[in-house]
């Protein structure tokens, strides 16, 4: 690869990065400015959040069950199966719950946001809104951003609870005393774990909304462009979620001391 090509790629990368963070910054600032588009925010909360409930319940149930199954097999030789509840809870609440819920929502919602906004761009609806005097970020991005900031933590909490219940079902199948399963939960968890389990989905929600909107609003071409933008949004969101998960975990570990 010659220098000119490298230069062009780097220039493109930093240009995209700058635009992405500009959109994120402008979105954040506009959360506090009128008009607030309450109705639109509620509609988006319903569309993006509530409709993802079932898929998060399924994800939580089966990941909790498989987590308990694997833990039981590992703990059995050490006669430590009573700790399975705590292990499932701490793993799900701190790590798997937020990440799995976010990845499921990315696939379902991130692509939907991009496809919707992308279609609006290629059919000139976004241009029409701009001509009508609408602030596109305030009208299209902020309601989705607010909906995701609220919906993903709630979906994650549901995923966590259902996964612990899934672990309980699996443990009951292996004759683990239910009281022992439940009493194991606080032994492994501290309050900071719960905070971490809520902070992460807030950040992930912001990533899904901004990435989905960014890809959607920068869609070029027709139907093919919309498809490409949706794919880009899902891949980028997923990668950013996994990368940011590491850094948030690291920050919490540093603060824990």
């Amino acid at each position, binding site marked *: 690869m010659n220098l000119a090509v490298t230069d062009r790629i780097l220039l493109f990368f930093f240009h995209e990065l700058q635009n992405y963070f500009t959109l994120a910054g402008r979105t954040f600032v506009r959360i506090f400015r009128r*008009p607030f588009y309450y109705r639109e925010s509620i509609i988006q909360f319903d569309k993006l959040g509530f409709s993802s409930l079932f898929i998060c319940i399924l994800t939580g149930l089966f990941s909790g069950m498989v987590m308990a199954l694997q833990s039981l097999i590992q703990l059995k030789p050490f006669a430590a199966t009573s700790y399975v509840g705590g292990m499932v809870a701490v793993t799900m609440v701190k790590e798997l719950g937020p990440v799995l819920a976010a990845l499921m929502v990315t696939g379902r919602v991130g692509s939907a946001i991009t496809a919707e906004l992308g279609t609006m761009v290629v059919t000139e609806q976004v241009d029409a809104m701009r*001509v009508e*005097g*609408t602030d596109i970020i305030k009208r299209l991005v902020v309601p989705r951003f607010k909906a995701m900031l609220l919906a993903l933590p709630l979906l994650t909490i549901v995923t966590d609870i259902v996964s612990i219940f899934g672990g309980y079902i699996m443990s009951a199948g292996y004759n683990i005393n239910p009281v022992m399963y439940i009493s194991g939960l606080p032994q492994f968890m501290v309050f900071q774990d719960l905070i971490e389990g809520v902070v992460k989905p807030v950040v992930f929600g912001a990533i899904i909304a901004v990435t989905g909107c960014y890809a959607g609003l920068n869609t070029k071409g027709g139907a093919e462009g919309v498809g490409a933008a949706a794919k880009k949004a899902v891949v980028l969101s997923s990668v950013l979620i996994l990368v940011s998960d590491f850094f948030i975990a690291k920050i919490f570990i540093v603060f824990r001391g």
Partner: protein
Amino acid sequence: MADYTDYGGDDRKGERAMNSRDSIRMEKICYSIGGRKILEDFSFLLERGVNRTILGVSGSGKTTILKLLLGLLDPDSGTVSIGDLCITGLPEASFMPQRKRIAIVFQGGALFDSMTVGENVGYRMFEEGRLSEGEITAVVREKLSFVGVDTALDLYPAELSGGMKKRVAIARALAADPDYIFFDEPTTGLDPIGVYNICNLMQRLQGEGKTTLMVTHDLATAFATSQRFTFLHQAQMLFEGSEEEMKGSCIPEVREFLEPTERSLFI
């Protein structure tokens, strides 16, 4: 070629008083996409009261001109002014009062598909929040009635035909009470009756004092609704003048556009 001169449109077209400051201008505009020049050193003046059409083959940059005039696109170089204000490089919010004097009817209508026809037409009024819902509904009904689709108030854009979509888009443009209305290929894809309706509407709008700027390659509609014509070819303005001047033009590209021949194949 169909003759649209009997639409009963505005007899006074072109005779309205002109204020030298009341115009939309672009000067020495250069615009390119991915290295391909769309416009090069392009200057254009749209005066209030003079209805214009920009002609050119598909892909010649006609729609780009409309978007540049509205400030939806930023030129690589050159300036765009609405009235006295040069809008090039300004943030959108700072020229919104000037832009609100212009409305546009996009090629496909660009109706918001999540809203009903009524909500589409009343969109700007709902956004501004100055009128009550009852007042907005009254205005919406009046505008829909003007374009002849008042029965479609509660329908969604997906339930409308192509011609109805364009008429609703015109109603939405009218609801903003603009001084200028831009039309992007308003008759493309319509049957002769649909074309007739759109031409008739444009002439009635001109009769109500609106200045229209249309981009099209439909010559009959252009000659029926405009006094001045601009011909675009290879990123540059090749011709500017009246209908008579255009029809009498010796420029080969203009002649080819007006009367395509065997030679035009595969151009």
